[in-house]
């Protein structure tokens, strides 16, 4: 237990210091990317095609941050076994740990950006409520979801490198199918099905509920988020376990 804690902490630290070593702005880059995306979305949907959502920047940013965590994490997960061949082929090392490390080190970036989000919320006159205490629950659910998806795509990518491209494509589509820059109630007819099947949608909506609306998400929604995360995590882990020995032979 103590050992795994040390191992994960050390690998997260390593991941983190490697990402920003030899870059002048370092950590700032991970903040600039979502901020730039925010500017674009605000420009398009407030000035070009107004969606008429009040406090739109705060509305978008409360969803954009968890989305950024999700997409950077899943993108990296696809290549993680392939890129860390050295570690995967080490005796007594369980490669699944790399997925946990990836999720956590991207979570740190999320945490660092969190004060900016709170600043924007206050600036636009949103009130911060005790609903925010649900943040760790949502983060845990999202973490499980991503470890599960990560194990799935990472394992597949060892055998079929196409997965790398499928993941980029899928994330691009998912960005538009997830209510990040629009409200889900604007969705018409059959599109609701896509929304219901998208595990990221309920999650993003829950984040928006606690940050932007200052209310706890409905029990039904929360339950759905928890169940889909657990199912995804178990699916990913089972699949990875079945293929673990082959991963080593194929790398």
């Amino acid at each position: 237990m103590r050992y795994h804690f040390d191992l994960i902490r050390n690998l997260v630290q390593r991941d983190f210091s490697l990402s920003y070593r030899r870059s002048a702005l370092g950590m700032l880059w991970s903040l600039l990317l979502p901020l730039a995306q925010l500017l674009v979305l605000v420009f398009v949907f407030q000035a070009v095609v107004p969606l008429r959502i009040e406090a739109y920047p705060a509305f978008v940013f409360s969803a954009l941050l968890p989305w950024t965590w999700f997409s950077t994490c899943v993108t990296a997960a696809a290549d993680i076994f392939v890129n860390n061949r050295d570690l995967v082929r080490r005796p007594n090392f369980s490669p699944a740990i790399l997925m946990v490390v990836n999720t956590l080190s991207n979570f740190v970036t999320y945490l660092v950006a969190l004060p900016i989000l709170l600043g924007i919320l206050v600036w636009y006159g949103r009130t911060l409520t005790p609903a925010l205490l649900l943040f760790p629950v949502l983060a845990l659910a999202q973490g499980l979801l991503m470890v599960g998806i990560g194990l799935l795509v990472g394992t597949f990518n060892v055998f079929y490198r196409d997965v790398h491209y499928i993941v980029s494509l899928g994330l691009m589509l998912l960005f538009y199918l997830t209510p990040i820059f629009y409200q889900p109630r604007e969705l018409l007819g059959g599109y609701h099905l896509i929304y219901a099947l998208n595990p990221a949608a309920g999650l993003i909506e829950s984040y928006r509920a606690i940050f932007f609306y200052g209310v706890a998400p409905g029990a039904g929604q929360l339950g759905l988020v928890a169940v889909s995360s657990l199912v995804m995590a178990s699916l990913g882990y089972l699949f990875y376990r079945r293929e673990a020995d082959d991963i080593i032979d194929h790398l």
Partner: protein
Amino acid sequence: MTSSTISRPRPLSASAPRAAVLVESVSKRFRVRCLGRMALKEALVGGMLGRRPPVVTHWALRDVSFSLRTGRSLGIIGHNGAGKSTLLRLLCGLGRPTRGRISCADRVSGLLELGSGFHPDLTGRENLITGGILSGLTEREVRARQDEVIGFAELEESIDLPVRTYSTGMYLRLAFATAMQLDPAVLVMDEVFAVGDARFQRKCLERVEAFRAAGKTLVLTSQAPEHVRALCDEVIVLEEGRVVMQGDPDAALACYRELLADRGARRPATPEHAASRPDRPEVRWAT
């Protein structure tokens, strides 16, 4: 010990003393798909048409059996591609034998690829600590031992520089010292004595000697006859994945020399090529 070639080692009797490592008719098959990795499209299309992708199978190990008592040390020799590394990797629990069974009484620790997991942009110290944790120590334990490790690697001055600035010798010294931190019951080493200059190599050998003297079990491969003779109680000769013989080091080395001579007769080295490059360094320690 017998000097004749035996195809199969003696079966283990039920009353044998405690075996640290027990390998029972282990075979390992690798399948490599033709044309590199098959893309998803071909897999899907091929699957729908009921076509199997072309597969090249390669048996890296065939029906290998042996047992090793606690406190003994076993050498595995054979030419390149004989299956030595595959066998060691299986002993470390990397991958699963296609057939047969491997059981180890204690935790096995392996030095298979020195310096694997080192990152060039991180400093020697950072890599040392990560490496130590990866080989099974807690961070506190690694920090407690780091000075000893740095001293052993003789890198006091450059330990806080990025590893990419190191010479090959420095890199390997750090890798060996890092890997030896852990004190396992069974140690598996794949040609790791390629380290630094002759003096440092001697230091490494002494380290391994001390490990043996402490009653630990050792499995190693080496291309250097003097290391095999110095470190091993018994030796297995592998040829194309099969155990050709098992015996004491001298007999095994003699058998291995014969195999090499056979091989040389079948595939003669081109003398004119060798003569044209007399200054060519001997590459013995590919990593």
